[in-house]
């Protein structure tokens, strides 16, 4: 770094000075190392390829203190904020990164251990060492991962025992209080699904107030041999919330993970989702929709690394952008040498609903194996005029016709969600967010 650290970096270093040591030597060392790495690189800048379409100049000028834990613990958060139909299993709720026992229900049934990270660390730190002492590449592209590792003091540990079939979907809720302006919170999520086990998890992001805040979440999902993970992500944060999230999924042999993501809220949202398909015959499928309006900015970075034989992945993502919003999608399929028999596909289709909105999409294929089936495609377009006229010719008003077609466009990505009540709820949320009301002005 030649220039002076930005207000964002200075504030983060100040915040770190106030974080007490855990007394766990390897963990305190890891935090220190990550903080140093973050201080060294600062936030990624425009010339950083991985952040090319998501400028952080404005964020870098903001001095964000750590969200106050006592305030977070006392913040008024109505249960209705995160209640979801069809989701009635164990629940861990965090407000500004602080675990809220009063809103949570950690009893998730037999074979499931659901605990706040701080509690799990205090009880038995060693099993968490591998994940928490993990070293990220040193570089600005991973700045937020470093920051999160340095500053996240709580989060979720979820372990599903071998062969346990968890019937009820579990919910991890990250509430941004919206009551602590110019603060940041950080949470770490560690999920391990044991051999032959199966579980459905909903990751839910909401805001309780309108103040400007930053949240970062780094989540690891380890899906052991023959296990099945269903992950639904609902991001419905306030338009003042900045969220930087990283999900890292590791799949062992014969494991399966399916991710459904619906991104509706936030001012600036970055979602990095990376899968390491390391076991033979493992499968990783993703479905995602984003619906943006106003000046929202959402950046999805999907990477699927096929590193074993006969693995499969299928990605189907849809984006719509209205107003002056900007959507970014990068989807990369990387097939390593020797990962023969890989069957991978990726599709990203986008709709621009306004002349001032922008979508950048970049599908990438890197193939180093021989016998591989891989397909990818991306489009950006407008609503089909012929379909619009067809609907109108039957009496459906223009505004409604637009909304109907937009919903149909998005629905393809949600219809495979097996939880019917949740699927319908997500559809309703999406409908409510479609620009029918704005177009009627």
């Amino acid at each position, binding site marked *: 770094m030649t220039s002076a650290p930005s207000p964002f970096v200075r504030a983060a270093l100040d915040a770190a000075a106030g974080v007490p040591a855990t007394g766990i030597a390897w963990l305190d060392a890891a935090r220190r190392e990550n903080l140093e790495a973050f201080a060294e690189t600062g936030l990624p800048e425009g010339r950083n390829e991985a952040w090319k379409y998501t400028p952080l100049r404005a964020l870098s000028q903001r001095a964000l203190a750590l969200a106050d834990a006592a305030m977070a613990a006392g913040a008024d958060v109505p249960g209705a904020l995160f209640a979801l139909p069809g989701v009635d299993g164990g629940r861990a709720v965090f407000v500004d990164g602080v675990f809220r026992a009063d809103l949570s229900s950690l009893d998730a049934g037999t074979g499931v251990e659901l605990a706040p990270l701080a509690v799990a660390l205090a009880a038995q730190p060693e099993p968490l060492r591998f994940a928490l002492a993990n070293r990220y590449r040193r570089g600005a592209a991973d700045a937020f991962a470093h920051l999160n590792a340095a500053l996240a003091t709580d989060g979720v540990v979820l372990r599903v025992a071998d062969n346990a079939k968890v019937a009820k979907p579990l919910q991890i809720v990250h509430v941004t209080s919206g009551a602590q302006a110019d603060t940041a919170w950080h949470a770490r999520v560690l999920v391990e699904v044991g051999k032959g086990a199966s579980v459905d998890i909903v990751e839910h992001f909401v805001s309780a107030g309108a103040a400007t805040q930053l949240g970062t979440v780094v989540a690891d999902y380890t899906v052991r041999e023959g296990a099945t993970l269903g992950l639904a992500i609902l991001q419905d944060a306030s338009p003042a919330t900045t969220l930087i999230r990283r999900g890292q999924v590791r799949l062992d042999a014969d494991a399966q993970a399916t991710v459904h993501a619906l991104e509706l809220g936030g001012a600036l949202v970055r979602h990095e989702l990376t899968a390491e398909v390391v076991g033979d015959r493992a499968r990783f499928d993703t479905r995602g929709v984003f619906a943006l309006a106003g000046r929202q900015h959402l950046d999805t970075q999907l990477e699927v690394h096929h590193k074993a034989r006969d693995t499969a992945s299928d990605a189907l993502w849809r984006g719509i952008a209205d107003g002056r919003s900007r959507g970014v999608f990068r989807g990369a399929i990387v097939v390593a040498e020797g990962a023969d028999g890989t069957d991978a596909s990726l599709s990203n289709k986008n709709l621009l609903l306004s002349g001032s909105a922008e979508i950048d999409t970049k599908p990438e294929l890197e193939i180093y194996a021989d016998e591989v089936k891989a397909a990818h495609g991306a489009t950006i377009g407008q609503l089909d005029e012929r379909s619009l006229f*067809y609907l109108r*010719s039957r*009496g459906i008003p223009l505004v*409604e016709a637009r909304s109907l*077609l937009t919903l149909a466009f998005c629905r393809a990505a949600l219809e495979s969600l097996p939880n019917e009540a949740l699927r319908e709820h997500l559809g309703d949320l999406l409908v409510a967010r479609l620009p029918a009301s704005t177009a009627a002005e």
Partner: protein
Amino acid sequence: MHMLKIDNLHARVEGKEILKGLSLTVNPGEVHAIMGPNGAGKSTLGNVLSGREGYEVTEGTVSFGGQDLLALEPEERAAVGVFLAFQYPVEIPGVNNTYFLRAALNAQRKFRGEDELDSMRFLKLVREKLKIMQISDELLHRAVNEGFSGGEKKRNEIFQMAVLEPKLAILDETDSGLDIDALKQVAEGVNALRSPARSFLVVTHYQRLLDYIEPDFVHVLAGGRIVESGDKNLALKLEAEGYAWLADKHPHLRKADLAGEAA
């Protein structure tokens, strides 16, 4: 009182004048067939009447039940009773056929100040209409026209017509791409919907459809206007002799107008 009165209609598509002074009057209960060579403006007429974008009316008037039809949006035209059966019905993946039809019917009813149908009453109506159309209710559960065969698409158009109960139905080359069995089925559906209060404009290139949907009047559209009108025998004459004989009667028509070439 006439239902539809088109007077001296001129319309352009992409800057090119296609309709050049078309006049036509349709009374309630009448079936009018519009025939003519390719490129005569047959499809343009249907599109102009239903309000499709890109069709620019430069002159003339269209009165529908005394109302200026051209001043209305496409959805308003539907609500006052104009229905276009498309030559190429559009496939709309992700939009359920039943949902679409109920949304359409209720939007029309709302526009007319009528109460909207709840799903029970709507399903009852749909079942009645299915019986008349002899359509399997399996089509209802699919997305609008998605994966439908050519015949299924056309039958779905007529089925929509049966549910929406328009005053004026415009069938745009509904016979195109249909084999004889499918054609008969579609025609039977149309005939079941004939009534003293409902009129039809049957736009077709071939006389064949008129064997099954018997018109009260047959018109020849050439060079952008109606050049000949008669009863169903006119259609038979066209079938036997083609369009060339019209050139003797109408010297202003260019050969290309009658040969069916895109001029």
